């Protein structure tokens, strides 16, 4: 009994970390979009699909080449995100269209891209495909096997979120991006070139999601609904993170990953809840967070750091509070 219990616990924890890492990759871009252009982009999940198909196509010419698949997916999804920005979102933002209409437009973009992929995949006979990479067991924790995909995805997600975090805090472009996020008009007046910052943001947002899609496609299968079936889960991550916190998104990704796998496995084991109810957990989280704590569940680390800095500098200079 104990060994059985331990086995499913380890199993589901390993899976939670894996899925959580994919959620982190998939959601970082959405957080960035929400922070910089204030757009709840319902087409975000389609970047995962695009990335997964790009990866699958690359792998048919270059099998087992994870690096090329990842880079290719990043570039293609990122470019498509920029194209969508210039064709759809930018003209709408220039016209100062209301947020509901923007949400609707992002729905339309999602529908257009999804069924575009559907048509293309149906003609090319790729409605369900697998990238030509082999999944190799490289080790195990207890009886739970650890595969090479796991070995790539988990560090990749953590390293990339650190890189994005560093990019936003250290580089000039990243700092301008945060400036645009915190005050759009002021950033423009200061002379930050929105025509550079915003497209670059879309490259990162689309690219990271595409990268997540490659590994999700290897883990499940590449289909035209690969991304859109996870849309609300990705939104759950971002909402738990309080919509604009990058560090919160990393934590949120793992929260949703654990909820969907470890918590679900526990519910199944102890209460006999069937696994088909799995999506209800992140959905319920969305409802609860939006209704009762719209600032998110994860501690807002950025404001924490700012608070600590202010506290450290309290005697030296008087730091004006936000809004002054």
């Amino acid at each position, binding site marked *: 009994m104990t060994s059985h219990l331990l086995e499913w616990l380890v199993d589901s924890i390993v899976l939670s970390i894996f899925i959580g890492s994919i959620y982190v990759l998939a959601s970082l871009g959405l957080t960035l979009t929400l922070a910089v252009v204030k757009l709840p982009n319902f087409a975000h999940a389609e970047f995962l699909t695009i990335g997964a198909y790009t990866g699958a196509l690359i792998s048919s010419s270059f099998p087992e080449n994870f690096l090329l698949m990842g880079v290719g997916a990043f570039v293609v999804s990122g470019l498509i995100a920029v194209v969508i920005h210039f064709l759809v979102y930018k003209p709408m933002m220039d016209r100062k269209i209301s947020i509901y209409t923007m949400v609707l437009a992002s729905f339309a973009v999602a529908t257009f891209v999804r069924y575009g992929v559907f*048509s293309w995949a*149906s003609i090319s006979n790729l409605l369900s495909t697998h990238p030509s990479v082999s999944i190799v067991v490289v080790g195990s924790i207890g009886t739970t096997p650890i595969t090479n995909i796991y070995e790539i995805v988990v560090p990749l997600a953590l390293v990339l979120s650190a890189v994005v975090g560093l990019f936003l805090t250290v580089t000039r472009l990243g700092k301008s991006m945060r400036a645009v996020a915190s005050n759009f008009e002021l950033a423009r007046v200061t002379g930050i070139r929105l025509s550079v910052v915003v497209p670059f943001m879309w490259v990162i947002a689309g690219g990271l999601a595409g990268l997540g899609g490659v590994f999700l496609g290897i883990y499940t299968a590449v289909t035209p609904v690969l991304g859109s079936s996870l849309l609300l889960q990705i939104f759950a991550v971002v909402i738990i993170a309080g919509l604009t916190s990058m560090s919160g998104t990393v934590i949120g990704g793992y929260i949703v990953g654990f909820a969907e796998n470890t918590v679900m496995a526990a519910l199944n084991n102890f209460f006999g809840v069937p696994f088909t109810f799995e999506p209800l957990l992140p959905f319920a989280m969305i409802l609860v967070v939006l209704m009762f704590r719209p600032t998110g569940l994860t501690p807002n680390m950025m404001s924490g750091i700012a608070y600590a800095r202010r506290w450290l500098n309290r005697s030296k200079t008087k730091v004006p509070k936000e809004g002054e």
Partner: protein
Amino acid sequence: MAFDVIGLLISVATVYGIFTLLSLSLNLEYGYGGQPNFGQVLFYGIGAFSAGLVSATLLPLFAGRAVGDVCSIGALVTREAISASNPLLSVSTWLIALVVAALVASIFGFLASYPALRVKEEWYLSMILLVGAEMFRVIVRNTPQFGCGYNGLPGISNPFGWISSNSNSPLLIDLSTGLYAMAILGFATLSYIGAQRFANSPYGRLLKSVRDDRILSEALGKDVKRVREQIMVIGSAMAGLAGALYVFYIGVAIAEDYIASVTFSIWVMIVLGGIANNRGALVGTIALIGLQKGTQILGVLLQQASIAVDSNLLVYLDYMVEAAILLLLILYRPKGLIPEQAVKTVAYRSFDSGGKDQHA
């Protein structure tokens, strides 16, 4: 004859009536009331399943048979036999089912307005309703107690099916489906008249004022929360009625019919026709139904001309065209085909003739 033209017309009329109800209800909620309901399909589905369950329970009950398990083949055969042989029972059960569906959907609309009045940012409500609709689908699909789970609740017959039950004459079949289409169009017409009167009433103007400026309306002493609650209840009842009418048309209540794409189509309809404009909703609905049926007919014609085209491809194309229409409209004609018009009251008319247009 290439294909059954009368049958096609009847099915267009039926679907048009159902979607008119849906687009009018979304237009009331979003166009007039400013509630961005991205989960319209939730109330549509709730209406469909409650009507299905009521019909499947009441038909054997009224006929004096045991109800038993509504999902079993035996129950299916029993209720189809009852509705084929007993016109009175069949029609009365149908009417009861419609009323129950509208009531249940309006209760859920009231429940959904709870978060609607409490969320902080504008688009959270869209998110909550979207998630609500998805949760409904996951729960219904995986819980056999509500509408038989994955396979759905079958055997919900056309209430006029008894007309053609004893013969195979195509004329009688057309008569029974045609009568049902007429009934649906009747409901659609009634709700259009209702929505028009509603929109031009003082309450319609109150709705518009709440939509345009909540704080102002509150400052003028209007109960904004109450108004937003009421509009969700009314809109949801209409959507529930549409769901009930649909389930008696299609004959089976199945969770996979109530996906987010349906909500998306309804949005395209009202944006195409013109937001906050009931006539626009009618026009947008017929245009989109025309597009959907047109691609279906194109598929049939291509097949008859023995051109090998995957029929799914046309469905994908249909969705792409819908999305492209919506994007082009938002960019180049945000007011839709028929723009929103001023509320026609006596006071407004005299005011309008006296001075320049103050409405914009």
